[in-house]
């Protein structure tokens, strides 16, 4: 039995994993970079090991240092979370070699699903539908032009090693092929160290629907139903919900069965997600399999009533699944909102900085997973995801109403964030009706950016309050603070001269 888990990750997912470990009475080891000494996962874990400088390549992606921390701490297992090393077959292999349990699938399952071309071929063989396109990696621009013309516009160029929307380019006309190819390759090289790509027919107005699966080491596989993930911006999910507004029981059953088939085809073990793309006519195609926990796993936890991290640990312990497919049901409706430190009004520019104040929503049907606290400085080196709001309701309408209440209670000050933008999506007609595709945000940007109307005299009240606070502070200001105020003048002079050069 696993007694001590090293969490090879940071942020909300590291904290979330530690919580479940603590509930199972398993000791936890955090790892951290220079930038993360004050991060919540370091404060919350039983032990903490420094593993390198701030850039991820030197710390959270540094396999040697992480293995060293595991050995020093005596951890008998490593949980990789999502991102970073979670889908790195070499890391899984290395853990095996070191006699440390990797809480995730085997290196071969990771490799087969990690290489999108191998995955396509495996799925075709297993009888799972895939998007029309090439089954070979493209090595030359000439070959690419030829294949794309054969497939017919529009097409998607995708990184073979891809994931998370990186290294993807849409091409609609011949003139753009070469530049798209170049940029997809370059992004893939940077993100995955592998610049090979392949071509797929581009599915217009698609839905992105994924199925959660759990597979134990005894050959049992169950699917825990779908997550609708079509609310995306730049291929990054923002809001996810389950059940999907567009699935009926037959389609759910069929896709779920295919998800199990997909997992079985690679002898999968652990928690995984089979992603499908669904077109206008409700045809669905295998897109990829994420061989790890997903960011959006909590909505499945809420609706199905499982703790996926605990299931992962039980599977890693060699225990058989206690869940039976026929006993699994979806209870009510859950929606997740991803809170990012980014500025929607400034082209969603990432917004690192110090969190000065947080109001968190509570009460019936509300769960919050986060990694920030008042006074915490969000570092610039990592993903801008800082919190997740998960809301449950007995049906979709109820979940939407509760989400509106909870999002309004949620305030984060000091860093720009997308809470108001999330509120805009939540109020928008298409989302309320459940009629949206992956293009929804792009097609409705202007509507989504609108702030809610101010009730009654609230503007004037805010003006008065700020003014009273200012008067009070001026009265109280010590000589030292007055100097600080004066210094602003000096600063301004300096800035001005730069502006004027």
């Amino acid at each position: 039995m696993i007694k001590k888990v090293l969490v090879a990750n940071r942020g909300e997912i590291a904290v979330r994993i530690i919580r479940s470990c603590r509930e199972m009475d398993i000791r936890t080891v955090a790892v951290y970079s220079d930038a993360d000494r004050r991060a919540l996962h370091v404060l919350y874990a039983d032990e903490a090991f420094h593993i390198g400088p701030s850039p991820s390549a030197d710390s959270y992606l540094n396999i040697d240092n992480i293995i060293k921390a595991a050995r020093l701490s005596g951890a008998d297992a490593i949980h990789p979370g999502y991102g970073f090393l979670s889908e790195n077959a070499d890391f899984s292999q290395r853990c095996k070699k070191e006699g440390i349990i990797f809480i995730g699938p085997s290196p071969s399952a990771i490799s087969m699903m990690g290489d999108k071309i191998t995955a396509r071929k495996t799925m075709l063989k297993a009888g799972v539908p895939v998007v029309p396109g090439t089954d070979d990696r493209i090595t030359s621009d000439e070959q690419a032009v030829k294949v794309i013309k054969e497939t017919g516009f529009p097409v998607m160029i995708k990184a073979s090693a891809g994931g998370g929307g990186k290294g993807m380019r849409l091409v609609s006309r011949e003139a753009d092929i070469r530049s798209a190819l170049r940029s997809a390759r370059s992004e893939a090289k940077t993100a995955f160290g592998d610049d090979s790509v392949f071509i797929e027919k581009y599915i217009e107005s698609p839905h992105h629907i994924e199925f959660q699966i759990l597979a134990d080491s005894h050959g049992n596989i169950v699917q825990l139903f779908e997550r609708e993930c079509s609310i995306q911006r730049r291929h990054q999910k923002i809001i996810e919900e389950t059940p999907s507004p567009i699935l009926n029981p037959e389609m759910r059953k069929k896709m779920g069965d295919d998800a199990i088939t997909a997992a079985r085809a690679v002898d999968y073990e652990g928690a995984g997600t089979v992603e499908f793309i669904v077109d206008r006519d409700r045809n669905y195609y295998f897109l990829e399999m994420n061989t790890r926990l997903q960011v959006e796993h909590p909505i499945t936890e809420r609706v199905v009533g499982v703790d996926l991290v605990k299931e992962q640990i039980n599977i890693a312990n060699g225990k058989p699944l206690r869940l039976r497919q026929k006993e699994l049901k979806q209870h009510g409706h859950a929606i997740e909102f991803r809170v990012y430190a980014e500025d929607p009004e400034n082209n969603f520019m990432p917004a690192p900085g110090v969190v000065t104040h947080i109001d968190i929503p509570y009460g019936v049907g509300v769960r919050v997973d986060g990694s920030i606290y008042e006074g915490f400085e969000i570092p610039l080196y990592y993903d801008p995801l800082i919190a997740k709001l998960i809301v449950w309701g007995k049906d979709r309408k109820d979940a939407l109403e509760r989400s509106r209440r909870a999002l309004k209670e949620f305030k984060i000050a000091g860093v720009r964030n997308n809470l108001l933008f999330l509120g805009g999506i939540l109020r928008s007609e298409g989302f309320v009706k459940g009629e949206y595709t992956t293009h929804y945000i792009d097609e409705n940007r202007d509507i989504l950016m609108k702030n809610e109307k101010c009730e009654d005299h609230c503007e004037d009240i805010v003006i008065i309050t700020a003014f009273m606070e200012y008067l009070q502070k001026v009265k109280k200001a010590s000589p030292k603070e007055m100097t600080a105020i004066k210094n602003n003048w000096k600063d301004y002079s300096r800035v001005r001269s730069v502006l004027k050069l």
Partner: protein
Amino acid sequence: MSYEVKLNDRLARVEVINQDGNQLLVSVDGKEYELDFVQIGKGSYSILHKNRSYNVELIPVNGIKRYQAHTLQNSFDVEIIDAESKYIASRKREHDAADEAVISSPIPGRVVSIMVSEGETVEAGQSLVIISAMKMESEFRAPRAGKVISVMVTEGQSVEARQELVLLEYS
């Protein structure tokens, strides 16, 4: 004594007429408000106006004159305009009207790519520099057409928040 207060794009004139304990009489743009005004914490206020309950949280932004303000429903940027603010604003207007501009990054990050060189003429909206931060790449574009006077960073370089990237001369 009355002040100007800026809320998002609105400029309002505020004057405290009378204050007696929690009871506050104040006017905004000539409209009078009788309020039950109570501070409940640092920067946090409860205001009752004709039994309507408002809860306002103020988070200071650099000093004591600028705030992010939250109510349950909305968020605002608020600024108290005093003599100093007015001076700065007038300078800013001068600057906006100028024929030169420094493009700078509001956030720290790493320069991924520089897409123009010194002396090059650029169109409005043309990409100048790409900065990477928090796994995201941000493009910085020319606000107006003009000419690149100076490129102040190199590819691969780390930049601080507000560091200057490119100097443009508008045409």
